[in-house]
């Protein structure tokens, strides 16, 4: 930044604070990172209210398209648009290459791990992962033992959450191996973005992501049961009251497959059919957006009306592919997470390319005492939860919350883990008329059928509250488009 008369750039930035956290746009000294320069200059050249105008037009576009999610807690569940930040988050080709390799390695290893756990459990016999950790996991599904899944693929649709630490290095915060959501926001963000900044987008040479639905369809098709060359693929949704219902309708439309609910499905002789106006039609592949627990009342929760009775037996008979497989939540348990580097080493003989965040398991006496003594500095999470629920952020907590968590940890240490409070990276966001840094994470979407496929980028989630570290949409987070550069 030059001294004297403020440049257009300086006006745009106002007092853009930098501290020890990694800033996606600016280096520690305040200079722009080279790949952000063109973006910053283009923004600085816009007339003052032009950014606001484009922001409003983008918002309107989301609203009229009905890109909303449901917020619970009111009488009818209200529909809201997912908050959206106008500025793209940039990732260089080199950075992406490492992320892609790292995720490919990680997903391959986790898949081998699931296969092993549900067959011979060698990794337990070799005492690399403690047996009690696995068998005490609430997402472990005994019913999956010895079951042959198509192509040995347990996790075909994955979204892993990455953070960038102050060293500039990306780390994996958690894996979502059950029913990860948000990919429709990635796709619609991109569409709105191309309309909002067409020239800028063009000049950057951004790698495309729009083919995700097609890749997803190809992935699902590759997992069809044998002897079904033209498989009938469906997307199973819990229904209109689910918070991700928009995404389900969006993906079904984009893939051109039927969106079914449990009540559309019937099983007969271990074959799954859907009820159509043209009679019963056999279903070959189910992309399941319903949790394990609710999928089949005969096998899992008997009070669930969202699934299809007999589904699991049809699956066991190999007459239908259900993906992700049941019981995959075992491998995204936050305590099992701590073992992922060891899991990668055990199955692939490699070091993890993307490191983990340091994690304390609380079952060990020594670690637990250390964590309890330092609750005000750590983040504590319930192992089986997601979406930012069941979490204590030490530095932002009250003494009462800490006491409550301490009590819960003592009562059930297996149910919690602790991690240091991370100062993960921040990216510029449009707040009012100025750029201000906000914490961001990155959720790339990984598909695994014939091979691992990752569309370049993913969903960058933003903690829109100043200073907040929580990016989940259920907790007031937003998102922005992610540009992976050539």
């Amino acid at each position: 930044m030059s001294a004297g008369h403020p440049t257009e750039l300086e006006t745009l930035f106002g007092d853009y604070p930098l501290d020890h956290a990694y800033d996606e746009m600016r280096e520690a000294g305040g200079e722009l990172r080279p790949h952000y320069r063109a973006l910053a200059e283009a923004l600085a050249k816009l007339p003052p209210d032009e950014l606001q105008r484009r922001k409003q037009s983008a918002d309107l576009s989301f609203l009229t398209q009905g890109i909303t999610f449901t917020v619970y807690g009111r009488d009818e569940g209200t529909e809201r648009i997912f908050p959206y930040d106008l500025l793209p988050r940039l990732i260089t080709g080199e950075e992406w290459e490492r992320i892609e390799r790292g995720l490919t390695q990680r997903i391959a290893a986790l898949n081998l791990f699931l296969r092993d756990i549900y067959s011979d459990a060698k990794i337990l016999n070799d005492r690399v992962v403690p047996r009690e950790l696995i068998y005490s996991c609430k997402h472990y599904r005994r019913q999956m033992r010895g079951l042959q899944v198509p192509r040995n693929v347990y996790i075909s649709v994955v979204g892993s959450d990455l953070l960038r630490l102050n060293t500039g290095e990306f780390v994996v915060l958690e894996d979502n191996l059950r029913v990860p959501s948000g990919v429709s926001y990635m796709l619609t963000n991109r569409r709105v973005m191309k309309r909002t900044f067409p020239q800028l987008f063009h000049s950057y040479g951004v790698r495309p992501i729009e083919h995700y639905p097609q890749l997803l369809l190809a992935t699902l098709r590759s997992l069809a049961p044998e002897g079904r060359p033209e498989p009938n693929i469906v997307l199973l949704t819990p229904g209109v009251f689910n918070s991700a219902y928009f995404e389900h309708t969006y993906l079904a439309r984009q893939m051109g497959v039927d969106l079914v609910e449990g009540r559309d499905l019937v099983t007969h002789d271990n074959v799954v059919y859907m009820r159509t106006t043209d009679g019963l039609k056999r279903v070959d592949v189910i992309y399941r957006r319903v949790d394990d627990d609710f999928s089949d009342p005969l096998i899992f929760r008997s009070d669930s009306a969202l699934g299809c009775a007999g589904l699991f037996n049809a699956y066991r008979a190999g007459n239908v592919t259900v993906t992700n497989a049941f019981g995959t939540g075992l491998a995204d348990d936050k305590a099992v997470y701590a073992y992922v580097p060891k899991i990668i080493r055990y199955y692939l003989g490699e070091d993890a390319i993307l490191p983990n965040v340091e994690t304390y398991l609380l079952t060990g006496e020594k670690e637990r005492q250390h964590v309890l003594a330092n609750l005000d500095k750590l983040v504590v999470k319930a192992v089986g939860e997601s979406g930012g629920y069941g979490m204590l952020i030490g530095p932002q907590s009250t003494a009462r919350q800490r006491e409550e968590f301490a009590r819960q940890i003592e009562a059930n240490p297996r149910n919690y883990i602790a991690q240091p409070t991370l100062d993960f990276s921040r990216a510029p966001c449009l707040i009012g008329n100025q750029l201000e840094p906000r914490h961001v994470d990155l959720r790339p979407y990984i598909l695994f059928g014939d091979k691992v496929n990752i569309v370049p980028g993913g969903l960058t989630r933003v903690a829109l509250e100043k200073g907040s570290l929580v990016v989940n949409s259920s907790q007031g987070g937003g998102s922005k488009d992610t540009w992976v550069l050539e």
Partner: protein
Amino acid sequence: MLSRVADSLYWMSRYLERAENTVRQLDVTMSLMLDTGGASDEMRWNRLMTALGKPPGLEWNGDLDALARSMIFDSLNRASITYCVNAARDNARQVREEISTEQWQRLNRLYHQMHSPHVQTQFRSNINDALASVLDGIHLFKGVSDTTMIHGQGWQFIRLGRYLERAYSTATLLEVYHLDLFHREQDHSGYQYLELVGLLRCCTSFEAYCQVYTADLSPDRILEFLLLNRDFPHAIRYSVDRVRDSIESIQRTGGRRPPEELTAGIGRLHAMLGYTTIGEIVAGNTAEFLHNIREQSMLIHELIYRYYVHYSIQSALTI
């Protein structure tokens, strides 16, 4: 197409048709009440209620304003316009991926219109305008349905819902008016004229009628027009013809053997309207004829559901 989807599209459309019908009949009844001669408010209100299937909770109590208000806004009363619009939107929401964005946006707008505080004020200041704007919303939805959606099975189920509801409700309306109006001696006080115009306006058919028969209103001709005209969209025969077209189209595109009972059922009703003259209807038992139309529409509805939506697994496996 999934049976559940067909079910939702059918009811989405049927509820909107019902809402439209209710709006028009309410509008006509209230404007007839401005002329105090001829019949009492109570009698007219009761006639409206009979034509709408005697919904509970709306019996005449002398307070027309309150009754009309609950007829429009009471979302707990299944006969109210708001209830029908809510139900149509609920059905649309469950098949969001099957209908076009334009359809969804129109219906969504209508829904928000019914629930906005503004419409209550509008209702107080000018009820006719308020009802007209609801009708506009419904018409817009029908327009975009025809222009933005593939005319495949889904669209055909939308048409089934619309025309079955129309045939049923028009037959009910005629049955009610028949008892009330058609047996009377010709009177020239002008009140009978108003009533007959009202009947035609309930089916948006006054102008169309005049084009065919001139403004010479006679009960028999009105009956002929609303029952047997093959070109007027609100006539029962026209509606039944469209139901037949849609069922044939659904059978053509489907791979299953056409269900004989359904083909026979719709054919019977079609023939009944196509091969009966108004002279025969008037000379015979008109009320029974109208009642018969209603029964057969209900039967067709049941058969559609039995074959396309609620069929048993066993029956589907043996075909």
